[in-house]
């Protein structure tokens, strides 16, 4: 698991790249860390891999303290860095062999892991080619294979599917999901909000080194965008003036053939609202939750942080 408290990093005694980050990611959980370029995602990840020492606060990764047990942390963490970091004059086999050795794997394990990962990421055919000849997506897949080579308990992945074609992205997402189900602790730094939405159990938004939001997608939506909204669509014009709204339901917008409600407790209020509508003989065609994307949450949060108006 990953646990941090008030984790902070200052550079040159001036600039706080990370400021008071407190996180808790359990085994079998994926946390997506979202934020602008330079928000502090990479610095946070580097502290979690014991590459940078915190200026303030503490962090424990896979049960080890980042300042006291850097070697143990590096042995238990798989990192996909911002840049793929491949040695261009090595073949994929040589590259994985090198890192397998660096992580102290024995020859049999190196061979089996390397074979499995190359095959899984569809790199077997290109395994004896120098990585300098690879496409961007292939390089990214090989870099991910390197991060997974020692089957780490904790994974820190920076933009895992960037530069990949849709099939490869799917492959990577499936692998990440499989790793989650095998109780790995995973942090993904990404700008791909759809991917974060699809993969992450919890999402944290970081801005200028500070965590602005941290929670499940539903929690974030509720916190940032307010209570859930539902829309009722009618077959013909319906006059809602006489409609008796149950407690906790607010009519937020209306048109001739549709009404939109903000509902605090849908489980309690929705049956009553539907009953109210049908009892008024409303020609109801559909009643559904208005879809709200992580993108809206993110953009609204960023707009609030920067003090600008969010245009939905």
């Amino acid at each position, binding site marked *: 698991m990953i646990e941090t408290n008030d984790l902070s990093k200052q550079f040159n005694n001036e600039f706080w790249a990370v400021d008071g980050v407190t996180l808790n990611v359990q085994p079998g959980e994926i946390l997506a860390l979202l934020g602008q370029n330079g928000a502090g995602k990479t610095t946070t990840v580097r502290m979690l891999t014991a590459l940078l020492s915190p200026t303030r606060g503490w962090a424990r990764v896979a049960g080890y303290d980042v300042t006291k047990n850097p070697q143990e942390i*590096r042995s238990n963490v798989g*990192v996909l*860095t*911002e840049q793929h*970091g491949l040695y261009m*004059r*090595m073949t994929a086999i040589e590259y994985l062999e090198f890192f397998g*050795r*660096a992580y102290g794997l024995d020859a049999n394990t190196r061979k089996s892991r390397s074979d499995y990962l190359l095959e899984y990421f569809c790199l077997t055919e290109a395994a004896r080619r120098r990585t300098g000849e690879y496409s961007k997506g292939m390089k990214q897949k090989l870099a991910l294979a390197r991060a997974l080579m020692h089957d780490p308990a904790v994974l820190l992945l920076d933009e895992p599917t960037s530069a990949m074609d849709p099939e490869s992205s799917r492959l990577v997402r499936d692998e990440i999901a499989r790793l989650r189900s095998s109780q790995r602790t995973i942090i993904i730094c990404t700008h791909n909000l759809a991917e974060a939405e699809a993969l992450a159990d919890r999402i944290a938004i970081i801005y200028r080194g500070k965590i602005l939001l941290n929670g499940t997608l539903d929690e974030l939506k509720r916190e940032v965008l307010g209570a859930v909204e539902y829309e009722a669509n009618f077959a013909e014009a319906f006059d809602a003036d006489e409609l008796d709204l149950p407690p906790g339901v607010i009519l937020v917008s209306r048109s001739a053939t549709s009404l939109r409600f903000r509902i605090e407790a849908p489980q309690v209020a929705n049956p009553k609202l539907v009953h109210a509508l049908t009892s008024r003989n409303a020609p109801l065609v559909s009643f559904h939750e208005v879809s709200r994307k992580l993108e809206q949450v993110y953009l609204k949060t960023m707009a609030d942080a920067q003090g600008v108006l969010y245009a939905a």
Partner: protein
Amino acid sequence: MRRNFDAIWMVARREFLDQFRDWRIVVPMLLLISLFPFIADDTTRQAVTFMNRFGGELILDSLIPFVVLVIGFFPLSFTLVVALESFVGEKERGTIEPLLSSPLEDRHMYLGKLLVGVTTPLVFSYTSIVIYLILVSRRSVEFPSAYMLTLIFLLTFAHAVLMVSSAIVISVQATTIRAANLLASFVVVPVAFLMQGETVLIFWGNEDVLWYAIAGVTLLAGMIVRLGLSHFRREYLLGREIDNLNIKMIGRKFRNRFVGDARSISEWYRRELPITLRQLRQPLLIVTVLALLAGIASYVWVVVNVPIYIDITPDRVDEFRELVAGNLTSLDLLSEQLPAPVLFFYNARATVTFLLLGLVSFGTLGLTLFLVNIGLVGGVLGAASLVGFSPWLTFAAGILPHGIFELSAVFLATAAMLKVGAQLVTPQPDKGLGEVLLVSLADWFRVFIGIVVPFLAVAAVIEVYLTPVLIKLAFPYL
């Protein structure tokens, strides 16, 4: 042990693969090692012919060891780029982070890269030398002795370690390959100067002296390796992105360290300077013990050995005493011939020279020069005793009055310089190399400004105005 070697070899092996798959390294080096020995052979013969035409009487035989040394040096200087970009190159190519994120220890990475950095140029150098020696063996000249060749091979090895270890320190500290390459001259030029000195030794024909050169260069190289390992920080390799010369920040850090928390000069003398002096206890003890040993050894050497080379007859002693008596009359004019400010300047310059030498040698050269000076004092006292003057009286009248201040100042300055050298090779997890250097220099300047300068000023005045009087009082019979 085995595990460490395996890890070092693993890093080195990858680097070897990378290098020997890069035609930009391999092709120029192959050209260099295959052509340069022929060019050197031909040029040497032509130079000898040319010089002999004008009565130079140069013999090709005596040039061969020198040329061997030069041939060994050229591939070293060209392949230095491999070491120079060892870390900073990986950083620029973005390959350093996965490496640093692995459980490889700092020393494994550092020594692995050092191994490659040393081995590659040495392979090229030795190959080049062997080709040249094959050419030499076909000529009707005297082939250098196996002993001399062994010395040159060892010297080339020492040069390689020295240059590569320095280049790797640069590579770790630099933030771009460009910056590292710009700093390369700080490695190549000093070693080229060093080689000139060694060449003199070779031409002198005193081959055994080369052992000292080998030992000195190897010691220095070892210290640089230690320096590099001490200041190798994963954090600095990732944390710094650009080379900014922030004069303001440097000035502020230096000033903060120099001034400390003091709000007035008196407070600085009462609170801050004693802190620095307390930190100098150990180096001061080392300097004092070594100075005593050097002084006594020098005194004993003069007393024991000079009579072997010079027959000290009563007539000679009288001659010497008359010479001293003649010189004593000129002591009255000392303040005109050597005014106190000039004497002060010379002494202050000497302490700064100790520091500068100490900086490039982690204290060793500065300490050596200091001990040579102390040895001279011991030698003078030994000479005095040989001609019948009491060494104690000579010391008490001629050295002690101003020496109380001058020797104290020089001892403290040397101890501070030694501390600077020691700090540079001591691991300090929370500081970078630049910061360590800055803080150490600020400490040295605390001692220099706070004690050395005023003490040397007082010593100069005493030496010019009081010491001559005391000498005359002590030796009235002269």
